[in-house]
């Protein structure tokens, strides 16, 4: 049994975000992190490994420096890492990305017992599209927004969250599940794990590695193969600074209440 976890390295948008004058993101000035939801997927994989003895493989598409992130994930207990990297893959939208990642997963081979885990969405694009699109490209059933996962033989039961409650869903392996933060608390790297991680298997899948897969075609990968294009990107205007009221006492509050009443807001 294998568990394949898809992860993404993303700019840390929780801190200061730098935007270039032309409206693009100044990525060079920003720290990168492992996408938070993906760490929940890694943790879910490690817990399934403890239960079943499965091999856990982490896979990411990105530039070569993403090795550092993958090694850190190996230090948490993941057995093997694959970086999918090549200039032919650059500029891919979610459709093209899922074609490439699905081809890479095909290369690893999807067998009867296997499970593929993804984070729900990445904090740079917030699309939540790549997980379901990989599942479609691999012809596998999917369950998204997983808050609980239990495996019993070839049946996986998932608590799938909705805005107003949840669904309990049963699905047979092989399948793809996207994970949310309510699923678990990701473990830290262990000291031994950090010591060992650079001796664990690490591979790069480039265009040459994947090119024989029918999913890999110039018309379906990279910038040219992406169905969506950016028409314009821009920064939203800052709303004009409003009124800072003097003081913080009852008189201040009375003034504010008066202003609201004058605008018929109360």
């Amino acid at each position: 049994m294998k568990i394949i976890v898809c992860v993404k390295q993303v700019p840390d948008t929780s801190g200061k975000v730098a935007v270039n004058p032309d409206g693009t993101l100044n990525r060079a000035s920003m720290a990168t992190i492992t996408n938070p939801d993906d760490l929940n997927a890694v943790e879910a994989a490690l817990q399934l490994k403890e239960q079943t003895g499965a091999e856990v493989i982490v896979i990411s598409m990105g530039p070569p420096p993403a090795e550092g992130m993958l090694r850190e994930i190996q230090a948490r207990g993941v057995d093997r890492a694959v970086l999918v990297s090549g200039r032919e893959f650059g500029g891919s939208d979610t459709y093209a990305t899922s074609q490439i990642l699905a081809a890479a997963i095909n290369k690893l081979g999807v067998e009867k017992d296997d499970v593929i885990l993804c984070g729900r969405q990445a904090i740079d694009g917030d699309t939540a599209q790549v997980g379901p699109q990989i599942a479609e490209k691999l012809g596998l059933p999917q369950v998204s927004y997983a808050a609980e996962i239990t495996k019993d033989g070839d049946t996986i039961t998932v608590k799938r969250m909705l805005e107003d409650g949840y669904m309990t869903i049963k699905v047979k392996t092989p399948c793809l599940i996207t994970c949310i933060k309510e699923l678990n608390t990701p473990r830290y790297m262990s000291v031994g794990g950090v010591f060992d991680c650079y001796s664990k298997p690490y591979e790069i899948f480039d265009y040459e590695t994947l090119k024989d897969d029918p999913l890999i075609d110039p018309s379906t990968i990279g910038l040219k193969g992406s169905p969506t294009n950016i028409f314009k990107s821009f920064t939203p205007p800052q709303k004009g600074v409003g009124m800072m009221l003097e003081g913080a006492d009852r008189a201040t509050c009375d003034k504010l209440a008066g202003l609201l009443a004058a605008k018929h807001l109360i």
Partner: protein
Amino acid sequence: MSNYNSAAIEEFNGGVWVFCEQRQGKMMSTSFELISEGRKLADELGSKLYGVLLGHNIEGIAKELGGYGADGVYVCDHPLLENYTTDGYTKVICDLVHEYKPEVMLIGATNIGRDLGPRCAARLHTGLCADCTHLDIDVPKYKEFLRASSTLAPNMIDSIKEDDRNLKMTRPAFGGHLMATIICPRFRPAMATVRPGVMKKNEFDKAKADACEIIKPQVSLTEADMETQVVEVVKAAKKLVDLIGADVVVSVGRGISKDVEGGIKLAEELAEVLGGVVGGSRATIDAGWLSADHQVGQTGKTVHPKIYVALGISGAIQHKAGMQDSECIIAVNKNENAPIFEIADYGICGDLFKVTPMLIEAIKAAKAAE
């Protein structure tokens, strides 16, 4: 891979479609928002607007969509469609798209819409833009939008060619730091999931509802198509807070940490006086102080109430993305440099535990005086 993309985009003349989500036979309010927005797009394209409604025994709720602007509704009724499943819903929708060829398809960006949308787009080999907050066809209208909502230089806006007829799908990226407008020029339907609570609902028109055409396509679905099995659907036991529908939202942030219960109680009291509900920043949800249905912001809900009060919220860009279009923003924060003050109409620099009780009294007094 599907050879579907070989069809010429001109063949997709089946109008604008809106996937109208229902749960347990009740229409989600985002379906009405999207029908209203879809009406605008269909008018710009000079085409028709159709709702797409899947479920079991749901025909009775279809015509109401006409009251918000749908010319017709495709009603797909089948026992296997009673509960949402990725497999069943994707198959039926893709079959419909193949047959009737819409040029645009909108889906609410709910937990279900965001499961269904990408699966359909991948099968249909077309583009999907996630979680859109603004949609246009006509370039002059798009330019108007950019003039009001972007920092682009006027000459950059003026130079956009006016003949583009693609659906222009605008959405926040990088937590709202950037906005991107996406098009899908080579494939149809152009697909978008649309953030709930953002598009305005039209006034309901009874005559249009009565005139709405109901179309019942053949649904071919069998147990063999179903790879996932819904064991149960559980509604949250407690009533969830209706942030999106509220006229007033009083939100709390990390600033309540020294007395969480007291801070929430103050927010509840202020919300009661103003006739609103309580929300929270991501920090308060992550800390477990409030349940997830209270979350305002990029990963929570987008609200635009008449009054938004931010108590002890610093104003991270992710939070601002969910509330900055509120009509009147009031912020109370101890830190005079808190970014929330950059977008607040009225700011008070002070301790929320001291200011809020006085504000409650002041508002009570002002209301009594009217």
